[in-house]
């Protein structure tokens, strides 16, 4: 018996390990009356590491295998996505411990919730069935809603969490309704059954299928915060503690994009003519709205929210192409974007000033802390897509696929918005370097930098990864290529 079920469990071993660690942390937190929250953070980190090793060991390159009656799936693409999740979650966890400790927000719940959310994200990628995906989505979502409310004493944080929760619940409802329509169409929620039952040769596509797909896309567009489903993003970013935003803005965004990619390229590829225009629409709206709204922001986190929306527009453009190049573009874009966001939030988390959330608080940062400011400035150039930085290559990939698919006018629009976007990324550099701290209002004085050695290492690694990508991108691109070979429907 054990022999027959062992492979099943091997596939979800990382998730199991994460949940076990999380339960251990919860138990430990309840039992110990004088908790040292930092240690729970270390435990969570250990759990992540253990699970990551399990993932690396259990994966068989080039092979696709399912378990639990085809309910969960593992292949090169999912492996790639899971690596991104682990890296991102671990990096954010290390970056967040010291700042949360300083704000007295670090508790054992935080460590456990991060692990739950991570395991939810891993399951989202593995899920091979809409109901499984739903469960995974909720594990992730609910953990994030609670995390958003971590700062119980702050009204802003509570408001943000409530908004996030209510709008998230609506998105979930969309998702469930879409799933039920798909079930009505195919008689199953399983991806493979669904893929087999979709044919384009019928004269009129079944309405249930189309609307079901539409609802599911909307739900994921919400998770990705692509316009017009982006409303929650600026408020949540602004209200939540920065350390939590760093998590929300990172892996969950990437996972939403990757799962969407998987759904589109696998069961729904045949419906390409249906969803491609939808994604073009999402891309245009996100690029234009995100860029224009970011122009007038004065709060860094709100600004980052809008810049995320604009960046997600490029991801949508890559998705809309529906070809292997576009798929690879999305993978490159998402991974580089996550690394850049780790860098940006890591830099912001090093700043210890209650007022540190407006642009003006960065004035004179260039002379105050040259290294960190320089790093942040390079990240801004990179986010703006200025060569020779990594962000340029990400955009390059997306635009290449878009032009190859003939979306020239949208590509022109994307270029123009990226020039406008360069304006606000440059604005941050301007404030850091060209504005001296003498121009500051008194409450901004004393912007101090507190960073643990762990944070320093993560930031250096982040810079190293970005630099390495510019000089020797081939190893990484090879991984992307292998991940993209999973999809064969083109």
């Amino acid at each position, binding site marked *: 018996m054990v022999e027959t079920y062992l492979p099943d469990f091997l596939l979800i071993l990382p998730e199991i390990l994460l949940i076990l660690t999380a339960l251990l942390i919860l138990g430990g937190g309840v039992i110990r009356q004088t908790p040292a929250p930092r240690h729970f953070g270390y435990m969570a980190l250990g759990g992540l590491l253990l699970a990551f090793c399990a993932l690396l060991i259990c994966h068989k390159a080039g092979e696709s295998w399912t378990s639990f009656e085809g309910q969960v799936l593992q292949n090169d693409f999912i492996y790639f996505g899971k690596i991104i999740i682990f890296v991102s979650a671990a990096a954010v966890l290390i970056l967040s411990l010291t700042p949360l400790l300083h704000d007295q927000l670090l508790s054992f719940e935080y460590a456990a919730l991060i692990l739950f959310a991570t395991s939810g994200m891993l399951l989202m990628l593995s899920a091979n069935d809409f109901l499984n995906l739903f469960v995974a989505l909720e594990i992730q979502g609910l953990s994030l809603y609670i995390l958003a409310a971590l700062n119980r004493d702050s009204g802003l944080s509570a408001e943000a969490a409530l908004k996030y929760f209510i709008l998230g619940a609506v998105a979930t409802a969309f998702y469930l309704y879409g799933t039920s329509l798909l079930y009505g169409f195919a008689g199953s929620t399983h991806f493979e059954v669904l893929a087999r039952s979709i044919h384009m040769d019928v004269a009129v596509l079944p309405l249930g299928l189309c609307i079901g797909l539409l609802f599911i896309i909307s739900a994921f567009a919400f998770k990705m915060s692509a316009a017009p489903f982006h409303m929650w993003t600026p408020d949540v970013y602004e209200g939540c503690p920065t350390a939590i935003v760093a998590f929300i803005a990172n892996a969950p965004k990437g996972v939403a994009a990757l799962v969407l990619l998987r759904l589109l390229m696998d069961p729904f590829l045949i419906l390409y003519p249906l969803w491609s225009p939808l994604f073009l629409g999402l891309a245009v709206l996100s690029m234009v709205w995100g860029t224009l709204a970011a122009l007038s922001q004065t709060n860094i986190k709100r600004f980052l929210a809008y810049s995320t929306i604009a960046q997600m527009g490029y991801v949508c453009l890559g998705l809309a192409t529906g070809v292997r190049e576009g798929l690879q573009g999305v993978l490159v874009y998402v991974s580089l974007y996550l690394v850049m966001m780790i860098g940006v939030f890591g830099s912001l988390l090093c700043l210890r000033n209650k007022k540190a959330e407006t642009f003006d608080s960065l004035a004179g940062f260039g*002379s105050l802390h040259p290294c960190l400011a320089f790093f942040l400035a390079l990240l801004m*150039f990179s986010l703006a897509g*200025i*060569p*020779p930085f990594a962000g*340029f*290559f990400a955009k*390059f990939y997306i*635009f*290449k696929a878009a*032009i*190859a698919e003939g979306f*020239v006018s949208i*590509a*022109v629009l994307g*270029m*123009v918005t*990226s*020039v406008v976007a*360069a*304006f606000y990324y*440059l604005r941050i*550099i*301007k404030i850091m*370097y*060209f504005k001296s701290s003498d121009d500051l209002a008194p409450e901004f004085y004393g912007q101090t930098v507190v960073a643990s050695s762990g944070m320093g290492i993560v930031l250096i690694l982040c810079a190293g990864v970005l630099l390495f990508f510019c000089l020797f*991108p*081939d190893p990484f*691109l*090879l991984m992307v*290529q292998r991940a993209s070979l999973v999809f064969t429907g083109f």
Partner: protein
Amino acid sequence: MGRSMISLPLLSMIIFLPLLGALAILFSGEKRGDNARWVALWTSLVTFILSLILWGHYDPSQAGFQFIDSTPWISSLGLTYEVGVDGISLPFVLLTTLLVPLCLLASWTTIQDRTATYMIAFLILETFVLGSFTALDFVLFYIFFEGVLIPMFFIIGLWGGPNRVYAAFKLFLYTLLGSCLMLLAILYIYFEVGSSIPLALTTAFSPQVQPWLWLAFFASFAIKIPMWPFHTWLPDVHVEAPTGGSMILAGILLKMGGYGFLRFSLPLFPEASATFAPFIFALSVIAILYTSFVALAQTDLKKLIAYSSVAHMGFVTLGIFTADSAGLQGAMTQMVSHGMISAALFLCVGVLYERTHTRDIAAYGGLASRMPHFVTVFMVFILASLGLPGTSGFVGEFLVLLGTSQVSVYATVGAAFALVFGAAYALWLYQRVALGPMTSQNFRDLNGRELIAFAPLLLGVLLLGVYPTPLFTMVKSSLSHLLTATEKGGRHG
């Protein structure tokens, strides 16, 4: 190919030596910058010497690229790191490596704040500029071309005048907009051809696509060079830039536009270039006439020279699109000559500004009695700027007009007519600054450092004026190769 005796990747060494120097300064962590100055100066001097060696080993009888260094870079995208020089890029490489040490000398005492950062920015700028003149891969070219903006943004934004932030943003965003359109065209070519190396490009683009691609490249280069009516960023940026920044901007960065026209627009889209030539002629003649008038009315030294730059670049675009050997040679000569003259003129302004801290022309007068050396140098460059025979300015403008006369009588007459205005504003400027009643006692004459900075430019301008043969030999075969390619393409269509 380069002579086999050179096994070192000489060209790559030239390109990346400044970057190495910048890294050395960065990691020495020195705050005050006394050593940074010397490290930067020596790095740029060694780069210059290396580029002279490159010139020495360059075989001008061959038209193709020489000293090619090639390494695969992003193999999954088919991108390679590939650099090389031919007769069109070599003069710019030499000009760049010559001007950078002079810019550093010009900034020797004026940059006291964050000196090390300034030197780093300048050296990185040199790497990017050299890279964009030598890149043989579209994407690599784009990366260098665009990368230039980053150090320039800091040079203007950190060490510029009171309105520096506005100027830095204007430069960055204006140029970025043009470049983005070029990137789209590059991506399209990449998609169409399946490789991004312009060397391998023999594909003739269909007449339907050519105009669009041409316009996309035009957007980038016309803003860079700049042509009327895309020139509005130039005066603003020059006024705010520090002396070294102005020198490199007028001396080198503007030439990147002209280089782009020569390297990409003309050979890749010969038909579109022929179609659009009258349009270019019109814009160029308007640029020459209009900016000469505008220059007459300026009260700010730097603005005046900035506008004169636009006029001179008008000659360059005129010469390039004649697609005539005299015109092309004239355009090349004019670019090299203007690179030295404008850098020298901005250096003159810098020298004056250092002493009086004003750029207002009215604040100056009667310098001749106080600063005899300066006034002499200034006179030579003013005369070269207005194209006096015996100076490099004459050679370039004369050849351009000669080439233009083969193609368009109106454009020739218009441009020749404008020469009179060019002489007018230049001489009037000289008269107001150097002659007349003395306005202040506060003028020291040139010191040794400034003289050293002026000397190579002075020498270059005069040498090129009386004996331009070395430059002509350098560019000749590459230009005639370019010309045959253009004509063949034109006939093919």
